C-alpha cells in the first residue's frame, strides 16, 4: 500500500484576528506559520495505516522555498520522506489549481492507494482543495471521515461524520480522504523524529517535472478572483445574569431565554 499525505502551513488560529485586509490580499500575513492543524490528523492517519497495513508514506506540500515547515512536522512525527512542489508559475493559484498541482505530484509518485489531506486550511477555510484534488485524480473523495473501518482487496470502508450520526461508506481504491478530528489523536514528535526533521532535505518538483502547463495554474489559471475583501464586523456580546431564588428557577429562566434566542 502507498499512502500520500498532502500538508500545508497556516497561521496559528489564535493569531488570525490580527491579520489585516492588506496582509490577506498580499498573501503575506506577517505571521509565524505552523502546520495546518487539520493536516496533523491526516499525517497521523497516514502513519497508522502504514503501521497497521505496511507500505510507504510520502508527504507533499505546495509552496516556495521556506515553506518546508509542514513537511518537517510530518517527518518529525514519523513520515520518512517529503517532497516540496513549486514553480514560480504556481504563485497565485486558487484551490482548483492547488488540487491540480497536487494531483500531478501524486501521479508522478506513481501507483497510490490513499491520499490524505486536512479537511480545510484554517486561514482560507475554503475546504475546496480535497474536492479539487479528488476531481483532478478521478478518485473518490471521502470527506468528514471519522474512522477507517477496513482497507484491502482494492476497497476501503470508512465511517463519515454526518449531521445525524455516522454513515458507513465503501469505495474502490484509490481514494482521497479528508478526516475530521474524531479520527485520531495526532502523536507528538519524538526527539529522534525532531532530529531527523531538522536534518531533512526535500526534493523539489517543478512544473516541468510534473508535466503541468503553466497557463493552467497560478494566477494565469485562477478561476477565483478576490474582488472586495473586508473583515467581518466584530462580534457584539452582552452578559445576562439569571436571577432567581433557587437553582431550579435560574435554570428554568436560562432554558427559556436560550429557547427564545433559538439556541436550543
Amino acid at each position, binding site marked *: 500500500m502507498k499512502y500520500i499525505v498532502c500538508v500545508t502551513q497556516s497561521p496559528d488560529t489564535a493569531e488570525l484576528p490580527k491579520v489585516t485586509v492588506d496582509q490577506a490580499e498580499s498573501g503575506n500575513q506577517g505571521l509565524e506559520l505552523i502546520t495546518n492543524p487539520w493536516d496533523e490528523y491526516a499525517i497521523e492517519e497516514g502513519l497508522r495505516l502504514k503501521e497497521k497495513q505496511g507500505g510507504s508514506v510520502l508527504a507533499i506540500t505546495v509552496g516556495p522555498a521556506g515553506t518546508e515547515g509542514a513537511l518537517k512536522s510530518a517527518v518529525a512525527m514519523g513520515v520518512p520522506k517529503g517532497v516540496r512542489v513549486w514553480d514560480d508559475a504556481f504563485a497565485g493559484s486558487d484551490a482548483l489549481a492547488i488540487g491540480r498541482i497536487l494531483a500531478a505530484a501524486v501521479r508522478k509518485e506513481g501507483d497510490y492507494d490513499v491520499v490524505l489531506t486536512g479537511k480545510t486550511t484554517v486561514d482560507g477555510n475554503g475546504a475546496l482543495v480535497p474536492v479539487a484534488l479528488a476531481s483532478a485524480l478521478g478518485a473518490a473523495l471521502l470527506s468528514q471521515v471519522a474512522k477507517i473501518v477496513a482497507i484491502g482487496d482494492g476497497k476501503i470502508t470508512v465511517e463519515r461524520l454526518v449531521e445525524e450520526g455516522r454513515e458507513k461508506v465503501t469505495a474502490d481504491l484509490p481514494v482521497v480522504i479528508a478526516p475530521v478530528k474524531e479520527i485520531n489523536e495526532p502523536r507528538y514528535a519524538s*526527539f529522534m523524529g525532531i*532530529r531527523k526533521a*531538522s536534518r531533512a532535505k526535500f526534493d523539489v518538483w517543478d512544473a516541468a517535472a510534473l508535466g503541468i502547463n503553466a497557463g493552467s495554474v497560478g494566477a494565469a489559471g485562477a478561476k477565483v478572483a478576490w474582488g472586495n475583501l473586508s473583515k467581518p464586523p466584530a462580534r457584539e456580546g452582552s452578559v445576562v445574569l439569571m436571577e432567581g431564588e433557587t437553582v431550579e428557577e435560574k435554570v428554568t429562566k436560562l432554558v427559556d431565554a436560550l429557547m427564545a434566542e433559538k439556541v436550543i
Partner: protein
Amino acid sequence: MDFAFNEEQQFLHDTLHDFVAKEVKPQARHVDETGEFPWDIIQKLGAMGMLGLNIPEAYGGAGADELSVAIFLEELGRGCGSTGLISEAHLCLAAAAINLFGSEAQKQRYLTPLARGKVLGALGLTEPGTGSDLQGIRTTARRDGDEWIINGSKMWMTNGGVAGTAVLLCRTKAERSSHSLSQFIVPTDTPGFQAGPPEKKMGLHGCWSHAVSLDDVRVPLDHLLGAEGKGLQQTLAVLDGGRIGIGALSVGLGQAALEEAIGYARQRETFGRPIAEHQAIQFKLADMATKVHIARQALYYAAWRKEQGLPFSKEGAMAKLFATEMAEEVAYQAIQIHGGYGYSHEYPVERIYRDARLMTIGEGTSEVQRMVIARRIIKGR
C-alpha cells in the same frame, strides 16, 4: 558568539512548549492537590524519547546536547515542577551517573531501559544524619565473597519508591577520607531495599521523595559503579551536571510565575485601570523579567561550556545559585501582584512558590553553591 538555538533545539523547544501547554500544565494543579504521581505524562515523555535525552544513542537514548536537556527541563518547569523534578532526577542524577562511570556492560544493561522511560532512575546520597557533608555517609557496603552487602538508610531520595534502578553512595572504608566512599547500582527490587511512603512536603507533591532503608541488600561485585573508593569524586561530578538541570527547572518555574503575573496584572483593575498600568506593578514585572532572563543566559552558558568540554563547575554553581533564588523571588513577587488571590489554591502562583522553594536546597544548597564558587574564584580552578 551565537545566542540562537540551532534548528534541532528550536524544534525541540517548540514541540515541548506545545506538549507542556496541552498535557502537563493542565494537570499540574491536580498533581499538586492529590499528590498523585504523574505516570501518564511520564509514559508520554518516555514514548517521545525525552527520558533518554542525555543517554547516548548506542544505549537507546537520544544523545542530545546539554542545551537540549536544559530546554526540556525548563519547559517542563513552566508547566509542573513535580513532573520536572521527576525527570531531572532521572536524567541528571541516575542516568548521568551510570553514563559517566558505568562499564560497557552496566551501560548496556541499565541505561537502555532508563532511556526508553520503561524504568525510572534515582540517586541516593542524603541520609538521616548527613546531606551537604557527603563524607559523613554512614550507609556501608561490605564485600562478602562475590557480593557486596549494603546496610544503612537514605533520605529524600527523589523517585526512590518508583524507580527501578538506584545509584547509592556507600561507605567502603571505615575512616573519614576522600577515598572511603563508593557508588553502587542497585535494582530496587533487590531484597532488603525498602522505600517508605512519599514524604509529606511543602510542594512538589507529585514528585515522590522517600526514606529508603537498606537491610542486608546483596548485589554482585559487578554492581560497583566506577572505581572503588572514588564514590565522593564521582558523586561531585554528577552533581556538577545536576546543577544545570535544577537551574533549568528553576528558570521554567520563574518563567511560569512571570507569565501568570503579567496575565493577572493585565486584567485585574484597581482605581479604574488595570494594575499593569501602575508603575509599582510595572517595576516589579520589569525586575522579574530581567532576573528570569539573566538566569536563563547564565544557565545556557553553563550548559554550553559543559557541551564544549570546558570546565563548568563554577558557572554551573553560579547558574544554579542564581536561577533557584530567582525562581523563589519571582514567584514571591507574582503572589504579591496577585494580592489575596495569589495566596489561594485557585491561582497557580502559590504552587509555583512552594515548588520553587525546594530548588535552593536540593542537589546542593545555595550555601554549598557559594562554597563551590568561592573555592573556584579564590584558589583558581
